[in-house]
């Protein structure tokens, strides 16, 4: 390693030069800006913001039209393959309040949420008659991670009464997780109606209680 390689660490600011050159730059800039016509740039900026706003409005409207799992609507029925190998329908749980939670097992937020739920809220939720369904988004959203059984074992203390873990189909994941969120959950009341949708369960678990009451 040659000492010249460390040249970038040397002091590069000569204060007097810096000040005089910045004053010069400022003066030149001011002269240029007064000479330049402001009109075209302003129009281009407005057009740019209009295009962005248009795309945003289109995509938001488009999403809401395709969103079948909307708050206020009945929860679409989907198949869930549980860790014991049996496949059940979501409709089987209608009659109970359900916390339907879509996770990706490689996401640190999901791991933390599972631990928060397990240690702080599990007893309270199940005492309120809530069934927790933790479902791995289809194929872990295309990125490898632990299986849902391992996730349950590591972060939730295993499969426990009224807390089930499973996987589902691509179609079901598209319905409940249309934007490929890593951690999205739904609160479904005993009538099978979606009453709340949120992301980051660990941070929003208090909301679940308020919506169930």
């Amino acid at each position, binding site marked *: 390693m040659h000492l010249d390689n460390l040249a970038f660490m040397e002091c590069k600011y000569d204060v007097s030069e810096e000040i005089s050159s910045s004053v010069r730059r400022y003066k030149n800039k001011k002269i240029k800006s007064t000479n330049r016509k402001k009109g075209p740039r302003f129009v281009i900026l407005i057009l740019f913001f209009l295009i962005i706003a248009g795309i945003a409005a289109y995509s938001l409207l488009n999403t809401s039209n395709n969103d079948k799992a909307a708050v206020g609507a009945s929860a679409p029925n989907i198949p869930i393959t549980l860790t014991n190998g049996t496949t059940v329908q979501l409709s089987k749980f209608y009659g109970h309040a359900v916390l339907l939670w879509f996770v990706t097992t490689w996401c640190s937020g999901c791991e933390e949420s599972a631990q928060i739920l397990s240690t702080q809220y599990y007893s309270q939720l199940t005492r309120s008659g809530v069934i927790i369904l933790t479902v791995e988004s289809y194929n872990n959203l295309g990125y490898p991670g632990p299986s849902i059984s391992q996730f349950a074992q590591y972060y939730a203390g295993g499969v426990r009464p009224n807390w089930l873990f499973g996987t589902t189909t691509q179609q079901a994941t598209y319905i409940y997780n249309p934007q490929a969120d890593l951690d999205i959950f739904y609160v479904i009341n005993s009538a099978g109606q979606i009453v709340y949708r949120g992301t*980051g369960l660990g941070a929003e678990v208090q909301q679940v209680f308020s919506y169930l009451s």
Partner: protein
Amino acid sequence: MNLMSAIPRIMSDVLKYEYYAFGKMFVNARYLSLFLVISFSSSALYMILLPSLPFGRIVISAVRFITPLQLFFSLIFGILLGLAVTLNVYSVRFSTHNVRSLTIASVLSSMVNGLCCTPAIPFILSLGGASTPLLYSISPRIQAFFEFNYPYFYAASILMLTLSIHYLSCNIACCIRR
């Protein structure tokens, strides 16, 4: 030149401005207390913030999930940020060139882990008009990148802060000598 024998000379050459600037600055008790307050509070804030970032908001109960790397980074970052901010404040006294942009960039790069698990990336992509299949093909890859590579951003953040402290020390040392 042998690298091992050159290290002490390089260190004294490179750090001479830091020694000078810190010596001048910390003689004044006000700057020393400012440094201590900023270092302590920013370290504490980072210890809460870093494990909360995957939620996209402050979650106090997430503090217990802090990893050893995050703890180490919080302490180092707090000390360096304290130095950078105090040097910036000190440099105002001499109207020297300050390096705020580097400090701000380092704070931002330390927070990229928040992009992994929050809906920020899918939301930005959907604003761009991406459909569900397109979102499924792009968004998880970007999020996984931030999920697994955040230590590199921590390193970049520390490097930027170190450079900003070096440049600030140079400016202060040069200015006072004049």
